[in-house]
């Protein structure tokens, strides 16, 4: 039996147990899509629903995204891969969910694949960790000795460019934007409703998809995710026009780790970095 199959089996078993015992009222996991290679997020609410749960290498979605949608105090079991678990931790830090309301079903896994391209997802677009950082039940065997490279290796090229070239790069990328907001829909940390972009007062940028509005939208969104992005890469996979948003998020994650000595979503005791300050902060960060 493959590791994935074993995870799927365990997922069904645990989901069934949790729902039967009334420990949770919903299990957030994956269900079948229009074919094997396109599974979908799926919320199992009954024991019968459990049979529809699946897990395979295409189950990329970050289910933490749905946690803030449930009314407070709802008991939820959520299936999380490594990055997804960091999202859960970050949400706990931000008090959007309570630890005691969650049963975290951890999935240690590598070699997930992009639904669109079928390519293996690696350190280029994600944080590239194998094991969840927080879980109650592990659905597979912990993975040891996995080394997939630093999640920030991919930045070298852009960091090496001069400013003009970087501007040209982003200008070209942002011009593709159709303002469909798939990025913020996919993002586990984008839970603002309404989003700043939807506000009429103040009007931060054009509502229609103009390049100037794109710049304001994306840069502000990057800012809002700074110190919070857990590098799951979902925004970029969701993007229909393939803007490499992950690059900017990664860059800010890297800088924030350097400046604030804290990575997003690693410890539930941490305070969110951007609404905090530290005694070791220095003006060096402004240089």
């Amino acid at each position, binding site marked *: 039996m493959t590791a994935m199959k074993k995870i799927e089996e365990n997922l069904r078993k645990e989901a069934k147990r949790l729902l039967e015992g009334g420990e949770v009222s919903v299990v957030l996991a994956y269900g079948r899509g229009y074919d094997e290679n396109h599974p979908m997020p799926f919320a199992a609410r009954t024991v019968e629903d459990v049979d529809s749960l699946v897990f395979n290498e295409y189950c990329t979605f970050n289910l933490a995204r749905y946690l803030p949608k449930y009314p*407070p105090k709802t008991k939820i079991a959520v299936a999380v891969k490594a990055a997804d678990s960091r999202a859960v931790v970050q949400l706990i830090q*931000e*008090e*959007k969910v309570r630890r005691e309301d969650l049963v975290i079903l951890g999935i240690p896994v590598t070699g997930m694949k992009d639904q669109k391209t079928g390519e293996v997802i690696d350190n280029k677009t994600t944080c590239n960790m194998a094991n969840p950082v927080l879980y109650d039940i592990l659905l597979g065997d912990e993975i040891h000795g996995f080394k997939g490279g630093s999640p920030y290796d991919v930045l070298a090229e852009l960091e090496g460019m001069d400013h003009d070239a970087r501007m040209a790069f982003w200008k070209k990328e942002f011009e593709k934007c159709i303002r469909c907001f798939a990025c913020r829909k996919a993002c586990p940390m984008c*839970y*603002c*409703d*309404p*989003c*700043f972009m939807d*506000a009429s*007062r*103040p009007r*931060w940028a054009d509502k229609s998809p103009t390049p100037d509005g794109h710049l304001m939208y994306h840069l502000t969104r990057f800012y*809002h995710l700074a110190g919070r992005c857990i590098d799951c890469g979902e925004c970029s996979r969701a993007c229909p026009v393939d803007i490499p948003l992950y690059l900017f998020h990664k860059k800010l994650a890297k800088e924030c780790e350097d400046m604030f000595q804290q990575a997003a979503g690693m410890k539930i005791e941490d*305070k*969110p970095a*951007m*609404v*905090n300050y530290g005694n070791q902060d220095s003006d060096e960060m402004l240089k």
Partner: protein
Amino acid sequence: MSRIGVFVCHCGLNIAKTVRVSELAEFARTLPDVVVAEDYKFMCSTPGQELIQNDIRKHNLDRVIVAACSPLMHERTFRKVIENAGLNQYLLSIVNVREQDSWVTEDEDVATTKAKALINGAVFRARLLQPLVSRFIDVNPDVMVVGGGIAGIQAALELADTGKKVYLVERSPTIGGHMAQFDKTFPTLDCSACILTPKMDAVLQSSNIELLTYCEVEEVKGFVGNFDIKIRQKARYVDHDKCNACLACTEKCPGRGVSEWDEGLVKRKAIYIPFPQAVPQKPVIDRENCTFFKKGKCRLCEKVCEQEAIDFEQKDTFREVKVGAVILATGYDLMDTKPLIQYGYGKLPGVHHALELERLFNSAGPTSGKVVMRDGKTEPQSIAILHCIGSRDKNNHEYCSRVCCMYSLKFAHLLKEKTHGDVYQLYIDMRAPGKGYEEFYNRLVEEDVKFIRGKAARVTDKTDNPDHAGKLIVEVEDTLTSQFVTIPVDMVVLSPAMKPRQDAKDMARLFNLSTDKYGFFMERHPKLAPLSTMTDGVFIAGACQSPKDIPDSVSQGTGAAAEALTIVVKDKMELEAATAIVNSAACCGCQNCVRVCPYGAPMFNYEKNVSEINEALCKGCGLCAASCPASAIITRHFTNDQVMAEMEGLMEF
């Protein structure tokens, strides 16, 4: 559509000299929504104010822009002006064309262009201004005075006299401050104790003053009208309620500490009152030097105390005091002159600093008022007083310490009176700009004091001249004759700089004050608000603001009392209405505002899943608004819209 009036002030020539004011008004008239624009010589004068008010009525204005001096100067004035003409005071925008424009360039074109941009920004912003209603809060009628020197005593007495309750906090075991160390005061030469001790006693007798000696301010919360101040009562190891001030304990005590009051010239007991006239007349134990605390044995004081007032178990205690206003009168430190090795203080026994000499003059001092060398018996036959030691000096303190010229003259007079010695004054410039001061200077010239115009360069005990053997040699240029002079003397007196208290910075942080570049507390305005600070309700008096003599410190103490009274005399006071509110429809419930607010103003409503701001606690800094990802917080008077509109207007030119 707004109806905006723009009023450009010439400020005499202060603005008009570099900014073309009529062109500015002309320009303003071309801007959309500007109904009227005028320029006038002095907009803050009565006719200027009337001009604005008449235009408000005549043109039915709903926004007013005044291009004049800094808003920190006259925003309050013009708010009143438009309010009296029936407009809400927050519908005003001030354009700073003086401090940040006409005064900082000489180029007319540059200044005028910048002024236009600033006015344009203000017009953009003014359109979006909203009327705001001021909040009123209850005012605590009590006042705290921190520092029991002459300035603090004066302030406390004045306030108590008006019937207000005053907490007088003093860190040492007695009030009196530096003035209690002096023998005589210039220029009248009246005895310091004779004028100070009655005031100290009055403090003790006043039923309105609660004297908190041996206490320090630990923490300050709240704001004008409602300060909440935590006071640390340092352990005295003597129960002052039981003590009947018989002072038998101080007689028996074998412990010895350095007498602060006598500038370390003599020792005092470990259980002590600082000086005979100290207020309160009750002792404290200096833990560092107490035999019992050091060796675990002794307790002599306890044995002789019939009142059983000695309590070695006493601990520091804390209390919270609520007041409506605070006066800081924390005084100064004398500069340590040891690092100035050229003057030999600490190395050459004949070199004294000014406060040491004060103690030698004092009949209650270590020598019972005899001026003698450190051996305790030899009278100096010649004395040199060195001015400006560490003052007016880039290497130390750049400012003039203001009092040294005059006290040095006083020293000269007293030395003439008490010794048979020759007295030299080594000065750079004689500064005597006070009532009776110049006359005092003249008097001393006639008393045959030798004035040498030159700053002393060195004091040494090395000499080749056998006539000078055993003397201190002061080296100086007499700049009036351009000669290098060596003066053999027995005693050298340094007049060191007065500097900010060593912990002035900490005190400033506690009360949220700014300090000037030297570390003295900074006043709100050097001329118009010299006793106020940037923190409403906190006032300053005396040498904590800059070096001062006694008359000035007393005046400031009285002045600060009056300033404090303007607050606590009212039952209620108006607060800034520019606070933050939450647009709950937009709140995403992230609670960032709750996390960042230094005042705990935002609270999270778990029922509605939105934040709410308690306006009474909000100070309007806007941190929450900048931390709100959903733009749901509105910092009134500084809304996102208003700030961005102003930016747009500024960048258009």
